[in-house]
Each structure stands twice: as structure tokens, then as C-alpha cells.
């Protein structure tokens, strides 16, 4: 279970995340929605222990990210935005490094790397240098790193960004397949993705949560009970006039 408690993050005068709290249980796939700059990535970076919050905390399966960061990080698999990977390494060496840091050694290390390569469909490129890979393969390499220790909590920042439709389909299938056993959070601004994989969605704008519910519940929030896109626009544009997209 993941519990986020009153997270705040201030960069100088900018209040990037302003009091975000929510809970996610095992089996849920939480979609994190919001316009660019709304605070999605910043929130994820605080949960994963990359950025220290200005105040507030997150508790990951009982481990507080502030007071027990290493125990919390052990529970989490994280796919950062733009899937950063060490491009000088080969796919298999990169994953072996991640496995070693995750505490695997000897034959257990080889086995978990092989399993991750299989799950992320990387067999064809396993000995290739990451710098020579296409965006889709790099994304999947970073994804393999996030799942190789079978973490109970999986956090993915725009996991399908920049992928072609086939690759998106593969990633979504993987998310659905893992969902029952894990807590999963994905951030996205592709609304169809929310309907495709998420059991619940949080819409965040200007650092605050403006809506929290199942995709179906969210749709009923506009008078015109239209699409998720209408809801998204209504909630995140604030006072700006809504223009109907025909």
C-alpha cells in the first residue's frame, strides 16, 4: 500500500506541489493526470526519494520515504520520465548492474535479469549497446530495470510517451498483466490510456488534486457528461473559457 501525506514542494517562489494526499491499494492502477507542469513528475520524484519534499511524506508498505529511504526504495520500481539509461552499456550489463544494486548475486542475479529481459521483450537486443537502440527499446530497457526485482509498488512517469501504437499496446498489456499483484501509478496526459488501464484517476492542476475517482465517476462531473477530455479541460483550465473541440 502506498500512502501520500500532504506533500508540498516549493522551488523558490513556485509552489510546484501543494498539499497532495492520496492512498493506493494493491491491485489498483492509479492514473496521474494533469497538464504539463502540473506537478505530476515532482510528486513522483518525491515518492521515489529523488527529491526531498518541502513538507509531508509518503509511506511505502510501511516504510517512510523520509526516515527510511533505503527500505522504501527497495519496495519501489521506478520508470522516470524519458526513461534515462546508461547509454554506453549493453542492455544486459545495465540490467545486471541494477540487479546487483537490488541485492541479487550469483545465479539469482542472472535469473532475474533474464526474466526481466523476457518480460520486456528485449531478447533481440540483449547484447546491444543502449546508445544504438530506438526509443521504444530504450523505454523497455528502463522498464525492465523497474520490474526486475518484482517490486510491490511500480511507479511510471509517462511510460508510453514517444512509443508507436504497437509498443504502447505492449506496455499497456504488461501493466494490466501485473496489476492484480501490485500498486501501480502511471502518469500520463493521454486520456485514452487512463480508460484503457487505470482503475482510478487523479487529476492534478497547479500542484493540487482537483479530482479523484474512477474514470467513469470522473466523466459524470461535467454537465454535458461528455468524455474524459471534457472533464480534464474543465478541471485544469480553471477560469479560462472552455472551447468545445468538435
Amino acid at each position, binding site marked *: 500500500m502506498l500512502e501520500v501525506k500532504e506533500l508540498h514542494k516549493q522551488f523558490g517562489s513556485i509552489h510546484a506541489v501543494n498539499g497532495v494526499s492520496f492512498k493506493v491499494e494493491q491491485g489498483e492502477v492509479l492514473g496521474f493526470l494533469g497538464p504539463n507542469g502540473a506537478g505530476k513528475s515532482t510528486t513522483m520524484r518525491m515518492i521515489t526519494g529523488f527529491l526531498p519534499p518541502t513538507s509531508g511524506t509518503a509511506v511505502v508498505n510501511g516504510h517512510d520515504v523520509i526516515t527510511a529511504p533505503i527500505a522504501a526504495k*527497495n519496495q519501489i520500481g521506478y520508470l522516470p520520465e524519458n526513461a534515462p539509461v546508461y547509454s554506453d552499456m549493453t542492455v544486459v550489463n545495465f540490467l545486471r548492474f541494477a540487479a546487483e544494486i537490488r541485492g541479487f548475486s550469483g545465479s539469482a542475479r542472472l535469473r532475474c535479469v533474464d526474466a526481466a529481459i523476457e518480460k520486456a521483450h528485449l531478447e533481440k537486443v540483449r547484447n546491444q549497446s543502449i546508445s544504438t537502440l530506438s526509443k521504444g527499446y530504450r523505454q523497455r530497457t528502463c522498464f525492465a530495470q523497474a520490474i526486475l526485482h518484482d517490486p510491490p509498488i511500480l511507479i511510471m512517469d509517462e511510460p508510453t510517451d514517444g512509443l508507436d501504437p504497437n509498443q504502447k499496446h505492449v506496455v499497456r498489456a504488461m501493466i494490466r498483466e501485473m496489476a492484480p499483484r501490485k500498486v501501480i501509478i502511471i502518469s500520463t496526459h493521454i486520456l485514452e490510456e487512463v480508460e484503457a488501464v487505470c482503475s482510478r484517476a487523479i487529476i492534478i492542476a497547479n500542484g493540487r488534486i482537483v479530482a479523484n475517482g474512477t474514470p467513469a465517476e470522473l466523466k459524470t462531473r461535467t454537465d454535458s457528461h461528455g468524455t474524459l477530455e471534457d472533464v480534464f479541460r474543465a478541471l485544469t483550465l480553471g477560469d479560462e473559457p472552455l472551447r468545445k473541440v468538435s
Partner: protein
Amino acid sequence: MNFIHNTKAIFKRELKAYFESPVAYVFLVVFLMLTAFLTFAVGRFYESGQADLRGFFLWHPWVYMILVPAAAMRLWAEERRSGTIELLLTLPVTLTEAILGKFLAAWAFLTLALILTFPVLLTTLYLGNPDIGVALAGYFGSFLLAGAYLSVGLLTSAMTRNQVISFVISVVVCLFLLLAGWPPVTDLLIRVTQDHTSLNWLVTGVASLSFMPHYESIQRGVIALRDLAYYASVIIFMLFATHLVLENRKAA
């Protein structure tokens, strides 16, 4: 135990990273050619008629000043530029383990470069009877000097995502630390402050920051505790500052 395990994992990855790109080979070739050129051609090693390594170690502070920042600039700047720092620091490792792993890997790499200069030692052994103790002390002093330069480079690398900026700042800081104890610079400082004797402490303070006197005393074959303490404190201070810089970064 985790501490050693994680530091080792980062150490191995970082050391391999040198050899997975051309950086390592370019560095080694340039370092060996430059030290050989300076020792034999500029330093007139043969003409001096002395079978010792003084003319070889004399150049190390200057060669390191250019090359060590080049070997260090990638360490954090590249992680920040490519965003892999986010990956590294969300793995279950502490910042201290990451800093130490990288520092030791780069130091091991520089040590390899230093060891590969062994033909110079063999040449002097062939030509005469150098004092082996002094020669080994010379190598040890050079090893420590490389570590001190490297710790400066690691800090400047953590301050920016641009490797060129890291390189330039690091060269300037190293130049300062090199020249601060150099007689022409201390003479200048003494002249500037001669009307203010109360500032004498400043001159001696700045001079005692310098790598030079400590390097030279070890080159004479004297390994004194105060020189070891000097290098240890420079390195520890710089690693600690790196920790602070990385902890207080605002984003990747």
C-alpha cells in the same frame, strides 16, 4: 555490508564506463605521451646524467591539472545531463555510496595510468641505481595528488550538467591550489600585504592550502603524517561538499 556491496557495484560500473567509451584510451595515450615527452624531451632526462625520477614527477602536478579534470568532468555532469542521476538515486543506494563508488573508480583509473608509466622507472633502473624508496614515495605522492585533484573535479562535476563548465572550473581551482604555495605567488601576496602585518596569517593560510609543498616533501622520500593528513582532509572536504551539492540540487 550493504555499504561495501553498493559502493563496489557503483565502482565497477563506473570503471567499466571508462573503457566502454574511447575516453579511457584517449586519456591513457595522452597521459603517457605527455609525461614521456615532458620528462625526456623538455626535462632533458638523459642529459641530466642522473638516474632518478625527479625530472619525471616534477611534471605530474601540471599534467594532472589538465587531465584529471577531464577524467572527472563526466562523473556527475553526465548523470545530470542524461537524467540517469534520477535512476541512480532512486535505486536503494545512499548518496555517500554513490559518491564514494564513483570517486574510487576514477581514482583507480588514474592509478592505472600512473602504473603504466613503469617504463620510465625501468629506464632509470637500467641506467643506474636510483633510490627505490624515493622512487616509490614519488609514485605514492603522485597517487595522492591525483586523488586530491580528482576530488576537486568530482565536486565541480556535481555542480553542473555541462561537462565543459565542470572542466574549466576544476582546472581553475586546481591551478589555484597548485600556485597558492608557489614562491612567485606567495611573494606577490607578501608584497601586497606588507603594510598590514596583521594579514600575514592570510598569506601563510593561502600558501598552506597548496598541493605543492606537500607534494614536494613526499617527492623527497619523506612520508610525513601531516602531508597524509593534508591530502586526506582535502579529499574528505571535497567529497563532503559534493554530497552537499547533490543533496541540495533542485532537480535533475
